[in-house]
């Protein structure tokens, strides 16, 4: 269904092959299981250290334990902290209310249909042999088109540098057969790295396990190849609605509508030509 529904200017469901690799490696990705995230931020630190990502402001946000606030040019892993009031079995003093903490490490989704890659006018953004999406820093001219194209708010322009930056899924480490730095550093295996097919199977089993254990709110996000971006290369197990974590509930790659946009623009150009022709001819 996916490709037929998306149609037009989009590639197939195997992004590496659609991009011209004849014998790509198996598609690699992340499965971030937020049910075991402890909010230690080792992923944020490991990412910054390995990738030489600069400091991006030491601010107090007032948002639980999250002073990072969100993904951007200088934050490629972001741990969200959500405090929620929940009903609990009554304690000795009859108090039924408690707090649950949701923690989740967000990252670039390395979409099957990546809007940032589609709109990049210079070819700086490219699809790797691992099916991931990477910016070539020696090509990017900082036009900024990828930034509003991303439906997740991942990529951004680095201040004082002018170019766009985001997670590379540690392209350099993958080439050496290593795990990305964040997955390597994660102490609870909340961040799992591997071939996407294997991760999807593992994630399905984990959700079933959680449902059996009574965690009915466990759900996968971004694992479905028929969603609006053709499935994410980095997907998640969440314990609440996506928007609670700052994720869009139903993201769609903007390129899906681009053929219709081109047709409308061509029609409008025709109207413009006709209107001017009419104005200069009429009354002659």
């Amino acid at each position, binding site marked *: 269904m996916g490709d037929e529904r998306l149609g037009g200017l989009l590639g197939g469901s195997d992004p590496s092959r659609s991009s011209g690799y004849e014998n790509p490696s198996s598609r690699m990705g992340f499965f971030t299981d937020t049910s075991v995230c402890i909010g230690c931020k080792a992923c944020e630190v490991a990412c910054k250290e390995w990738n030489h990502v600069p400091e991006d402001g030491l601010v107090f946000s007032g948002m639980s334990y999250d002073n990072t606030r969100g993904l951007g040019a200088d934050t490629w892993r972001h741990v969200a902290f959500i405090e929620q009031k929940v*009903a609990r079995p009554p304690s000795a003093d009859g108090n039924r209310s408690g707090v649950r903490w949701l923690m989740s490490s967000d990252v670039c989704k390395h979409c099957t249909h990546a*809007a940032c890659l*589609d709109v990049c*006018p210079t070819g700086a953004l490219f699809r790797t042999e691992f099916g991931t999406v990477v910016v070539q820093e020696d090509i990017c001219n900082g036009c900024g088109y990828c930034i509003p194209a991303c*439906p997740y708010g991942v990529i951004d322009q680095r201040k004082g540098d002018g170019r766009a930056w985001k997670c590379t899924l540690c392209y350099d480490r993958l080439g050496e057969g290593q795990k990305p730095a964040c997955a390597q550093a994660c102490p609870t295996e909340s961040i799992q790295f591997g071939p996407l097919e294997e991760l999807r199977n593992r994630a399905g089993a984990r959700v079933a396990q959680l449902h059996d254990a009574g965690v009915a709110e466990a759900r996968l996000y971004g694992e479905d190849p028929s969603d609006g971006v053709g499935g994410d290369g980095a997907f998640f197990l969440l314990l609440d*609605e996506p928007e609670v974590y700052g994720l869009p509930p139903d993201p769609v790659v903007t390129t899906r509508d681009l053929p219709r946009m081109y047709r409308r*623009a061509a029609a409008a150009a025709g109207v413009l030509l006709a209107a001017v022709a009419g*104005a200069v001819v009429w009354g002659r």
Partner: protein
Amino acid sequence: MSDVTRTGIQQASPAGEAVGAGRPGPRAFRRQASRHGGETPVVGEAEFRSYYGLPIINKPVWRAGNIAGYLFLGGLAGASSVVAAGAQATGRPALARAAKVGSTAAIGLSGAALVHDLGRPARALNMLRVLKPTSPMSLGSWLLAGFSSCSVAASTSAVTGRWPKLGKAGTIGAATLGSGVATYTAALISNTAVPVWHEGYRDMPFTFAASAASAAAGWGMLSAPIQETSSMRRLGIAAGLAELGASEVMKRRMGIAAEAYRESPQARRYEQAARVATGVGIAIAATAGRRSRTASVAAGAALLTGSAMMRFAIFEAGMASAENPRYTVVPQRRRLAQRAQSEG
């Protein structure tokens, strides 16, 4: 009992569950105040949940002066080239010359604004490194390269009186490509996740085409003698009305994102200014513009101003819609609900 949120510690209220209710505890985070510190909530605000009210998407880093300015100047340049060809074909030499010169000046300023907006201006030529149909900016870069060459050929020949064949070829080429220059920018900004721009994609090209025609007509009235600009008055009146009408239709059809126009003080001011200026331009063009050169100049200036203000209004409304998670989350939630309903 209290919750810690970005706006401080708040008293707990009875569980106000958002869309997709059914779970016991978690409360919806509701936007308490607008971004600009105002205390007036937006009318009819649907309840939605978000991460501390932060935006979902990253807003464009494009600067209004450069990019909204280019949307206006590119439209003026493209439509002026169409006017130039029309004027030349129907024997209005002064209008043709003014339109050609205006087109070249506007596209020159456009190029400067676009390069100035790059994070790495020295790499501007990387725009011509590839040709990608999936990127309106890539196609647009090639379109601009071809258009500006034609426009320069046409205006140089018109001003110097030399190379008439080259001038004619340039005039025809610039008119053909110019209609695309005036409208491709609509596909460019619509092809993003910015709610106002994306949801307006059906009507954005027509709004831009009308705005460009209005600006070009305005430039014609401003720069050519009234004996040759009766056609520009007709075009200006029709295009000005079409510009105001198409932008209204676009807002009506973009869903809740249209509320971002009201939420952004800049967008509101620019939209008001666009209505007033275009309205005044139409009124003068329809009356005194026929007889008086001064009135014709005033009408032209008003139409140009109206077209520019309209582009800035669309730009600022888009920015405001990107900054508020509501315009991203609520339509997507509705879409999911509709899909669930039709499937089950």
